[in-house]
């Protein structure tokens, strides 16, 4: 649900995904971001239907991170998705279909637009 407290983000805004696994989220050959960084956890109970991102690349409290991935809001919207702010520091990528194959296709497309910072 949209939090009216925060205005819509402009296309130019960059958001950040914390890298919380040491291996797998980054291609060891090229340092490119992989689908794994943007894959919904559909096996969770309840299912995860959004991807958490941050306003800035600052380590969240009580979370081990291995760096940050940057992606621009306009690249997220170009895939038919959106990103909404739900707190001062936290945002959610919304609109990913909870179908395993489509979610994976979408994760790969997001990864291609993202980069390690």
């Amino acid at each position, binding site marked *: 649900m949209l939090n009216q407290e925060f205005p819509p983000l402009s296309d130019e805004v960059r958001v950040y995904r914390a890298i919380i*696994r040491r291996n797998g989220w980054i291609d*060891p050959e090229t340092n490119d971001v992989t689908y794994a960084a943007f894959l919904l956890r559909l096996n969770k109970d309840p299912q995860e239907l959004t991807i958490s991102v941050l306003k800035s690349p600052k380590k969240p409290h009580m979370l081990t991170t291995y760096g940050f991935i940057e992606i621009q809001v306009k690249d997220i919207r170009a895939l038919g998705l959106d990103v909404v702010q739900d707190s001062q520091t936290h945002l959610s990528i919304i609109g990913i279909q909870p179908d395993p194959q489509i979610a994976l296709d979408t994760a790969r497309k997001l990864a291609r637009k993202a980069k390690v910072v």
Partner: protein
Amino acid sequence: MDTILSAKQQNKPRLIIYAKPSYNSGNPIKMFASPSMPSVVSNSSNINSSYQITKQRLLEIDDTSCEDGEDDWGATRPSSFAWQKSLELLQEIEKYMKSNFPLGFANLASTGGIDLIWKNRRTKNEVIVFIPSKKDENISLYIGNLSDEKSKLWINPSIQLLVTVLQFLYQ
């Protein structure tokens, strides 16, 4: 103590116990290796380095620093089933593809399953094998290509299909 190299010289199969990973179950994987099987410690010229590097990358996804075996994100260590199946699959692929074994890497799923990943950086094609954490769940095989936006997903693929898809990936 016999080493793997001395076992090769004696031309006897040896039972290799890998110290890592130590699984969620606490039991190490035991793999029965024939004298011709490439070994991490052997410097024999027939080593398939892509196979060894891919296997090493698979072992590296195990994070033993978290005592509970999981954190807020999910599993920090693969399940015993996922370990065994992943290593078996890599061995099977190596058996079929031999020196053409493609260099891949691995990802730990939040469920404790394992994803085996191969990418063709030129075509942007990508093959992913999703190995579940539990035996009663399905293995799936995905091939995706960003250039024409197409992908395909198979449930419980045969090893022959997996090898065919990997061969296609690098055409």
